[in-house]
């Protein structure tokens, strides 16, 4: 029993203290293979989103009624869909909608959530109680159902999806930020700021915020992964980007009915695209989380 704790003080001694500013943290992150792999995948899809129309071999909207449901071949690497459109081109150009909507939605969620979390954690009181209950309500329901409810009520369009997902994320992010703020609240630098007569807004955004940024950063990347799933699901259900604009979720929805007929490529490639994007984001998230935790 005595033995079990013996290693604890040693660990602290073994760490040779080196000044660890942000620079070192970033260097450590950049050095991780998982980060490089994730970042490469992300970079690929970002290029597709930005220059999709130039890169794509065909016009993703051009229908070839004589070449519907063609299997992958030299002419169409990923085959063609029911309307004879080139699947590869649609996958490449389809990156744009998801890569526009999800980062913006996540950003709204993080900005609003962080502000709420700071207020909840530092000021406490009514805001804390009210938002706390809202978070519990949101957590109790599946994310997609809640999003669907609002999108149906407000009408499906990119801005609506962005705002709806952002506002659903906000309380969840607020909860994480709040707990990070509570840890900071124990520290004397907040008392010290109060003795300088600093206003609450200064204390929250200038004193506390920089210290909870690591938590916010992790939250940002985690939520981005969730947002991709949610947006793709909404599109699949027909409440996302409207046809004929190329979109992975919508394309899966349009083509999975012919899966039974053996036309697998029309569903598989957009699905792989979604999966690879989520994996890319998660690889980046993991490496950031691990470096910040160590």
């Amino acid at each position, binding site marked *: 029993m005595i033995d079990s704790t013996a290693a604890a003080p040693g660990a602290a001694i*073994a760490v040779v203290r080196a000044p660890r*500013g942000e620079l070192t943290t970033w260097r450590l992150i950049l050095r991780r293979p998982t980060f490089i792999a994730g970042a490469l995948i992300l970079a690929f899809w970002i290029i597709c989103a930005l220059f999709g129309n130039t890169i794509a071999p065909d016009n993703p909207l051009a229908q070839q009624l004589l070449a519907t449901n063609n299997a992958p071949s030299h002419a169409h690497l990923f085959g063609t869909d029911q309307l004879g459109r080139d699947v590869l081109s649609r996958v490449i150009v389809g990156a744009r909608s998801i890569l526009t909507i999800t980062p913006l939605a996540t950003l709204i969620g993080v900005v609003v959530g962080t502000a709420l979390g700071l207020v909840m954690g530092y000021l406490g009181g009514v805001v804390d109680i009210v938002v706390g209950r809202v978070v519990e309500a949101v957590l109790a329901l599946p994310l997609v159902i809640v999003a669907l409810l609002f999108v149906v009520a407000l009408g499906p369009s990119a801005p609506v999806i962005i705002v709806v997902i952002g506002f659903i994320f906000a309380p969840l992010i607020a909860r994480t930020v709040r707990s990070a703020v509570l840890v900071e609240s124990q520290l004397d630098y907040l*008392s010290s700021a*109060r003795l*300088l*007569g600093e206003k609450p807004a200064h204390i929250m955004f200038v004193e506390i915020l920089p210290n909870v940024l690591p938590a916010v950063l992790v939250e940002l990347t985690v939520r981005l992964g969730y947002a991709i799933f949610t947006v793709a699901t909404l599109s699949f259900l027909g409440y996302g980007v409207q046809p004929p604009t190329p979109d992975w979720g919508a394309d899966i929805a349009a083509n999975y009915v012919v899966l039974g007929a053996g036309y697998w490529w029309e569903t598989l490639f957009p699905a792989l695209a979604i999966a690879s994007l989520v994996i890319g984001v998660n690889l980046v998230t993991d490496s950031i989380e691990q470096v910040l935790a160590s």
Partner: protein
Amino acid sequence: MTSVDATTMPGPADAAGPALTVEHMEVTYRVRGRDRLALRDVSFRIGRNESYGLVGESGSGKSTVALALTRYLPRNGRVSAGSIRINGQDPLAMGTAALRGLRARTVSMVYQEPGRALNPSIRVGRQIAEVYEIAGLDRHSALERSEAMLRKVQISDPGRVMERYPHQLSGGMAQRAVIAMALAAEPSLLILDEPTTALDATVEAEVLDLVAALRAEFDTSVLFISHNLAVIAKMCDRVGVLYAGELVEEGIAREVFDQPRHPYTVGLLRCIPRRGQRKDHGRLDTIPGFLPQPGHSLTGCVFAPRCPIAEDRCRAAAPPAFVISPTRSSRCYLHEQASDLPRNTPADAALPARREAAVPVVRLRSLSKTFDSRGETLRALVGVNLTLEQGETLGLVGESGSGKTTLARALLGLVTPDEGSAVELDDQPLAADARHRPRQQLKALQIVFQNPDSALNRRHTVRYLISRPLTRLAGLSGARLRERLSDLVRSVRLEERHLALRPSQLSGGLKQRVAIARAFAGGPRIVVCDEPTSALDVSVQAAILNLLVDLQAKEQVTYLFISHDLGLVRYLSDRIAVLYLGRVMELGPAETVFAAPHHPYTEALLSAVPSLDGLRTERIRLTGEIPSAASPPSGCVFHTRCPRRLPTGICESDEPPLLEVAPGHLMSCHIPIDDLRTLQGDGGVP
């Protein structure tokens, strides 16, 4: 000190040989692909029944020694040279099973944090019994033996303690349980790594007494590791001084502390205020510079860069351990001159001329603070009346839980005191909450917190940290701000280059200087110093104390100095207030409070402090720990622990008033002052 012979003849005096022999041990940590030496050429022996002290500042490698002995080094550490023999056995050559046997039967360790050494989800009794079960006893007799063991470590109600979980025990109680567990295996070597550092002085005294008594009873050899020289002086026969991974001096404890023969030991001892030393006796000496980083590539003596008498040969080649006498060695070419080491810091101190007419700056009137926690009412402060005078230092002492910090925070407006309490500045009442105080009042009252890591925002640069109060409180900007900033930086002895750094890039002492600069930025009139040096090493502490004294002389500020270290309080304070369970027990000029007659609680606090010169005759001991403020004892709140309680029963029934027993000297005790004088004799501190 069981046997002087055993200590003067370190080595295989008896047939069994020494309990521990370490020869030329070197420990290396591999950090980021590079090997860094943490210990080099460390050799020492611990004889049978001997108590050996290892003393050094943080980073000197003390704990690494302990970990290496039992092969508990973290994965990146290894013993890269030398040999270890515990009871003649070599732990470095042992397989897993033999090593487990060694740890179970031959060596036991006790660490600083008892809370972390006990498994929080297992009852205390079971944890101790486990040691006996491993030794082969059945469950029933193991529990019986555990109970007996707990009784040995002076736990009065072992049955109840065994049924508890570790978190239900106080720190002192938990440490006793850990010691009981460590001794249960009847080890031949007991390693104590800062065993009392996390405890209050009164509890520390008890635990140290206990260790000394048990050592005699169990015939155990002890390796006692501590940063506290006085504790080592009290507990150990021989001592080794560790600096930057090297054993720089070794000898009989008494001799080493009386006549140190290595410049580092000399410097270290001069950093500590000796008994009775006060700030008007002159500055403390300091050790300039910093401990070299682990894995440094110094060719010469490790201490040479900080040594005032270093010569060329010191820098050219590392000195061997010179054997001065059979019991004494020093790793210094100049060991004969070490005791005449020139001072690093001139002794002359600019002191504020104390004014004859005391001008009160701050008045606390019947200050009370009640906390509600989980249905319990904690009375942290009860009707405290105190005055702070212009330019003085008021020392605030008491065990943890006595209300020192609450008092300081109420004064600053960081906690709101109860209705009916008043804090006055220049006879003007202050708003209870700092947020409602105008700038002039905020400016007047500032604080230096105990832990600069917590008090400085780690995301800001030093420049921002010091400029912000200049903007907020002094209302400066532009060129005037820059000018005042460099003044301030110079007066706390920081350098311009530090301004661009963040707190994590500074050492503990430098961080505390930044915190002091912040406190002084607005030109305060009262600065609360809440244990400002307790997180710092001895050599750094001296420099910070000198700085505080200098700043006080220059700025004429008033200090409220909170510390558990009575030596420091004595050194700095003009007046002293002794707090117990939120009540003032004694208040008066420092010399009066430290000299008999004093309040029995003050007497107990003073008795608890181990002293370097070992002259102190311990007169009284407190038993138990400070009662909970949720259910304070009736009558005099101190009666439950008071060794001088009156037999009449008045202590249990009536709370004694705080009366002036001599001009300026107030005391809250039923015992008449003349009786106290007789009881305590002239045993006060000279």
